[in-house]
């Protein structure tokens, strides 16, 4: 941790150093990530591509503090995540990270409003402010009129937009999305990608997994994961 505290602005949002992840042990061990390095600066829009099973989700889950690496270091906003206990990690997930899953992961039988409001409740935000920010987030994704709908009353694209609203609502520094359009038709894909473009334009840091080149084309940077190793592929930028 050398000069990373000199100016807060210069601290990379993500700083991953020779990080490895091994699932299982012995004969059945799977080396999902092998000594990966990755640096993402504030405001960057990074697309992660690679074949299925190459280790993309593994990487993103660790970046989102949903999983822990087997070796190496991960600094989030200059903070070594390994030093944090479960309660501090929960605060980190709540304030710093917004995570969008391929399978939406909305809480079933619970309204869009309640789903989006959830992170704010865990953040201890007052009821009145919660309401404002939840409605604002739903408005951003164009679903203000669907606040009281339950997940099973929404299309896949709408569900994913609710999930994006939920990831945004705490205004996290980092938005992580694991194939957010993987389960969507082309029209819904456009909606969600436009949404991410808008967030990027507003200065949000985004890391997104995709195996769609068209999706990757919207990003500033593209990194490719091959069998657990990372290679930088720049220049795809439009």
């Amino acid at each position, binding site marked *: 941790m050398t000069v990373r505290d000199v100016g807060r602005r210069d601290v990379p949002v993500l700083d991953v150093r020779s990080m490895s992840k091994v699932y299982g042990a012995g004969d059945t061990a799977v080396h999902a990530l092998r000594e990966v390095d990755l640096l993402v600066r504030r405001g960057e829009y990074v697309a992660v591509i690679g074949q299925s099973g190459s280790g993309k989700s593994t990487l993103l889950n660790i970046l989102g503090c949903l999983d822990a690496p087997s070796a190496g270091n991960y600094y989030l906003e200059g903070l070594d995540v390994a030093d944090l206990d479960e309660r501090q990690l929960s605060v980190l997930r709540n304030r710093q990270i917004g995570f969008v899953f391929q399978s939406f*992961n909305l809480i079933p039988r619970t309204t869009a409003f*309640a789903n989006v409001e959830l992170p704010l409740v865990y*953040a201890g935000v007052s009821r009145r402010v919660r309401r404002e920010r939840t409605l604002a987030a739903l408005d951003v994704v164009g679903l203000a009129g669907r606040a009281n709908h339950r997940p099973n009353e929404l299309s896949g694209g709408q569900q994913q937009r609710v999930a994006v609203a939920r990831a945004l609502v705490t205004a996290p520094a980092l938005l992580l999305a694991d194939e957010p359009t993987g389960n969507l038709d082309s029209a819904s894909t456009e909606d969600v990608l436009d949404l991410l473009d808008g967030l990027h334009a507003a200065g949000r840091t985004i890391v997104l997994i995709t195996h769609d080149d068209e999706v990757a084309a919207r990003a500033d940077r593209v990194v490719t994961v091959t069998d657990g190793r990372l290679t930088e592929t720049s220049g795809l930028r439009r």
Partner: protein
Amino acid sequence: MSFVEIVRFAVRALLANRLRSLLTMLGIVIGIAAVILLTALGNGAAQYIQSQISGLGANSITVLARAPGGTAGAAAGASSRPLTSGDAAALADPQGAPDVGYVAPVVQASLTVAAGANSETDTVIGSTPEYFPGSNTVVASGRAYDDADVSAGRPVAVIGRTVADDLFGAGSVPLGQTVLVKGVPLQVIGVLQAKGQGGGFANPDSNVLAPITTVQSSFTGFGNLTQIVVGARSSATQDAAESEIYSILDRRHGITDPNDRDYQLISSAQLAQVLDQTLSTFSLLLAGIAAISLLVGGIGITNIMLVSVTERTREIGIRKALGAPPSAILGQFLVESTILSVLAGLIGVGLGVAGTFIPLPNGFRAIVVPAAVVVAVVVSIVIGVFFGGYPARRAARLRPIEALRRE
């Protein structure tokens, strides 16, 4: 996150999963209600039988005629002799039966009893004044008939509480009034204390008691006795009195084989013992059924809770990914299962206790056993809270991604 928010989440989750909530509660409700009802039935039966026993006079021995080798009270067969006044007199002889305190010969008949426009069929029992202590019968108002009434064959009667209620109006004390027994006027000189259904084997409140001479001369004739009630001098001499009765009656009835008597003795002590045994078997049976109900209820709860673990584990994964602190998740699940269990416990107790008010035939009532209520409630709630919190405790140890991956 405040406690209020946790409770709000818990309630919202319960309402969002109504069917699951209801099924979980059903297990607890049924378990508790079954235990309360079954133990109340056992308890009620115990108290019923207790009162039956106390309906018999203390230290009293009842002699009944029976066919040899047959059952008590059966019509005397060809080879059997009925009980007679001679038998009663022999038992009253202090020489032959020094441990016998008193002897009350009994005749009885089912007859129409009328007063004014009211009439009903009651058991009319003719005996001597010793019958009152011998059958634990107490006069509430007026007086019992005495030896003078018996020797003069006076037309007097002491009537049961129900008889007075039915013929003269509820709560009435018709002393000095007249009842017509099969057309024969008897003057009411006393009313018995109500015993309720529990006294003896027929309802003593519906009896009409009169001097034996009166009943014999007017209704049954001077033939056989229905039974003879014999009182031992004290409970210590009850066994001695019994063997004296056996030796006197065996001689008079020409019995050589004690297994083939044409009469039978029933003592209150003996009856109490038999009933007590029956009762404890019965209670054990009910307790067993109650325990099984509780077990089945418990398994039901556990089942529902475990089936929902996968779904709940995913939900916990989502909540963790959104930044729920461990305390919020454990808190929500504990509050959820506590609300369910306590609510179901209250409903179960309510249903169980309400069930004990359902009227039962033969006048016996289910009487709630408080200890059983406590055990049932505690066991069910512990199961409910334990297994309700189980997914949370399990998932609390998982990383969010592991919880999310559960299928």
